[in-house]
């Protein structure tokens, strides 16, 4: 008997139309937990480093977290894993919503897609019945529209749908997979789904999920519920409103956007507008949001209301959360009315809300500077907002210049040439980043940007305050009830951290302290990604209800295998190292571990070298960022070491040029 998980995966070969229900190895659950952990193990075992994103041999895995479908509050994430068309590295974006628990109730832990369907299809899973169905009538339909049409044609209003829009169908490198109020957006997962010819995966489940020690498990859930209520009543003082509570940053219910609009960059991540937020704008934007927002909404089994239903004038209703509220507005130097309107189209097309606006702003910057000309944009409207709609439409259809831009700023710049590369200035490992440009190097963030393999800062940061509090008194108050720390030393690091003087950035926290801090932050995200827990109740906010001290209890009472802080930490390190190993075999080396050149104005090459050296050593990686034999053997990853030796990865410092053409033209293996 398996607890918390079902013990079965659905293996679907799209080339042959074959569907199998396959039992998974219970030992793997103990070693790699579930979600990202077991996804990574499957990718290592079955997808060789030579396999490119758009090869039929690439897998697209929809993995539920180990505790999805149990009563654990907020545990609803699907971890989608594949090889990214952007950089041919492991992509693992997550989505909340309702899909993962539904799949568990249908009796499966993962859906593993391989091959390619000759025609556009959708997959319909209802408990034991699984079908591959024709989706030709859904070609070109929006992702949300598709979900609605499928539920109607199946007469299954309670089915949960993960679908792609036109961007995914046309293999746009920043295409997302949309699921109601959530999406898996980073790394071009939607493009791989489109390449495989799958428009949607539709699930309805009516089976039981068991826990090993039920009374204990529900007791733990009740503690979490109480703590959430305590935190609702006790926001953290001294940090901005969107970060003082739990959940994703509360941008649907918070109308004060002074911090984002004045600290993040506008346009192609270029311009900071320090006095932007006036009373008039506050009033206008609040009334825009209130006028379009019908309700604050949640994911499965979670009381946090991070999302909202938005009805822009004369457009269909859609759902959004978090920072996509502002990305289009700020990329276009426009207002919230425009941002919420174009986000509707973008959600139906299914594009990443971080990358898409930046790609469009990048194109218009190239036009303004004469690298692209009016001839490249035939028929584009004159007005600023109209241009963004025009560009979005051309990108998702891959028409004209849109076909070039659909590969993201990195590849588009290479293809355009003529100095365009300088304009693709905000990428890490070829992936567009949040539009942030700051002054003084922050050593903690340097390490996270350089080594974070999710390529999204919000999915590695958290728990530790982003900046020191001004006075020691405030810091003392903060650490008083900070029981989530894995070790008391973290309190001291924070107490001694000053905004100015000897104990301030970039030299404090010291490299050794930074290693501890970054490792803790990353560890909690990796645990969430294996359990299926939303980062908004765990790794992201300050003082969350889930932490390293109660997680082992949840796992052992839920899944029934022995777990303590040490073994959980080791498990997380094991699959985190496996993620690194997969990317190592795909060529990632020290030269790739770096933030955008202009992320900070004040850089410190010697300190940065020391930070990276110290962190690599701390992680058990060599000076190239490759996990060492000793580290691999300690984690029971001997098979990785053997493969490394066979492939000679330790003698490859990455000087040979990696692929220089976009995957679009790449060969299929």
């Amino acid at each position, binding site marked *: 008997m398996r607890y918390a998980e079902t013990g079965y995966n659905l293996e679907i070969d799209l080339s042959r139309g074959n569907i199998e229900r396959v039992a998974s190895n219970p030992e793997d659950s103990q070693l790699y937990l579930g979600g990202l952990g077991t996804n990574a193990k499957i990718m290592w075992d079955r997808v060789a480093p030579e396999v490119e994103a758009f090869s039929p041999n690439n897998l697209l895995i929809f993995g539920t977290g180990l505790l999805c*479908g149990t*009563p654990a509050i907020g545990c609803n994430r699907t971890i989608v894993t594949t090889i990214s068309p952007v950089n041919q590295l492991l992509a693992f974006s997550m989505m909340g919503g*309702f899909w993962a628990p539904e799949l568990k109730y249908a009796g499966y832990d993962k859906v593993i897609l391989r091959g390619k369907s000759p025609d556009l299809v959708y997959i319909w899973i209802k408990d034991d019945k699984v079908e591959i169905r024709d989706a030709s009538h859904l070609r070109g339909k929006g992702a949300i529209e598709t979900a609605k049409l499928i539920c109607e044609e199946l007469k299954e*209003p309670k089915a949960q749908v993960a679908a792609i829009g036109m961007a995914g169908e046309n293999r746009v490198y920043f295409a997302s997979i949309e699921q109601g109020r959530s999406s898996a957006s980073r790394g071009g997962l939607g493009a791989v789904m489109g390449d495989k010819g799958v428009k949607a995966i539709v699930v309805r489940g009516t089976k039981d999920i068991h826990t090993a020690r*039920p009374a204990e498990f529900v007791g733990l859930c009740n503690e979490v519920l109480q703590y959430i209520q305590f935190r609702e009543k006790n926001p953290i003082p001294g940090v901005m409103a969107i970060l003082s509570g739990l959940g994703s940053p509360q941008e649907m219910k918070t109308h004060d956007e002074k911090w984002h609009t004045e600290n993040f960059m506008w346009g192609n991540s270029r311009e900071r507008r320090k006095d932007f937020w006036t009373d008039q704008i506050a009033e206008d934007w609040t009334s825009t949001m209130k006028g379009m927002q019908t309700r604050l909404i*949640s994911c499965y*089994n979670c009381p946090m209301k991070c999302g909202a239903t938005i009805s822009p004038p004369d457009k269909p209703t859609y759902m959004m959360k978090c920072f996509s509220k502002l990305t289009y507005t700020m990329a276009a130097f426009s207002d919230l009315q425009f941002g919420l309107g174009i986000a509707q189209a973008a959600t139906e097309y299914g594009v990443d809300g971080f990358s898409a606006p930046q790609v469009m702003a990048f194109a218009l910057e190239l036009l303004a500077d004469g690298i692209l000309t009016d001839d490249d944009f035939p028929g584009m409207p004159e007005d600023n907002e109209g241009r963004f709609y025009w560009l979005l439409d051309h990108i998702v259809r891959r028409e004209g210049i849109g076909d070039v831009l659909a590969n993201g700023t990195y590849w588009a710049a290479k293809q355009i040439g003529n100095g365009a590369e300088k304009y693709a200035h905000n990428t890490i490992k070829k992936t567009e980043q949040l539009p942030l440009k700051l002054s003084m190097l922050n050593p903690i963030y340097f390490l996270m940007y350089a080594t974070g393999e999710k390529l999204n800062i919000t999915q590695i940061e958290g728990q530790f305050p982003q900046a020191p509090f001004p006075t020691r008194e405030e810091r003392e108050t903060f650490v008083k009830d900070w029981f989530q720390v894995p070790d008391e030393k973290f309190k001291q690091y924070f107490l001694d951290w000053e905004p100015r003087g000897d104990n301030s950035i970039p030299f404090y926290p010291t490299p050794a302290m930074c290693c501890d801090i970054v490792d803790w932050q990353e560890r909690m995200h990796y645990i969430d990604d294996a359990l299926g827990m939303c980062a908004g109740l765990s790794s992201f906010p300050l003082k969350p209800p889930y932490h390293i001290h109660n997680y082992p209890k949840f796992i052992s009472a839920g899944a029934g295998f022995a777990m303590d802080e040490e073994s959980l930490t080791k498990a997380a390190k094991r699959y985190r190292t496996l993620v690194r190993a997969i990317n190592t075999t795909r060529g990632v080396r020290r030269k790739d571990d770096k933030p955008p050149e202009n992320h900070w104005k004040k850089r410190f090459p010697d300190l940065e070298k020391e930070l990276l050296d110290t962190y690599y050593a701390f992680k058990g990686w060599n000076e190239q960022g490759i996990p060492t034999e000793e580290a691999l053997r300690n984690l029971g990853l001997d098979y990785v070491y053997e493969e490394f030796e066979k492939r000679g990865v330790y003698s490859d410092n990455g000087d040979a040029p990696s692929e220089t053409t976009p995957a679009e033209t790449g060969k299929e293996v």
Partner: protein
Amino acid sequence: MATEKKIVKTIKINADLCNGCRACEMICSAFHAEPKYSSNNPARSRVQVLRHPLEDIYIPVYAGESAGAECAGRGVYVIDGKEYEECAFCRSPCPSREDFKEPDSGLPLKCDMCEGEEEPLCVKWCITDALVLEVREEEVEVVEEQEMLDIGLASLIEKHGKQKVMDAVARMSASTKSLK
């Protein structure tokens, strides 16, 4: 007529506050699992959230008395411009729909307000306060049990005759199976 005090438990459902998370469904099914909390499955829940996010429809509905047959006619409500499907507000397990039935056996389910708990678990887990328990005391008329029995028997005798009723009682007394 004599009266007595009766405790009436009501769940006040503020659909405007519902965030659509379905925690109520999950914990209901877990509470009613055997052994308690050993499994969960929202399809077994005695509360179902009628949920259409794009139409802004969020209605938690509780399972009530089972209906043996479908309604002869049905109604569709339109409230504040939102159209609610047939059966939207109905609490009855019935042949016309899947809700409020055990998914494997098809047996009807009924909300029991989580007997023995301080408050129904759906209320406890709904910290957005869409579900709130209200308890009030009511004076109700007490009908004597003997009086009820006499009325019942008299009507049976009128319909079937005294002998048939006496035979039936005698037969039922002999069979332990049909006596509770």
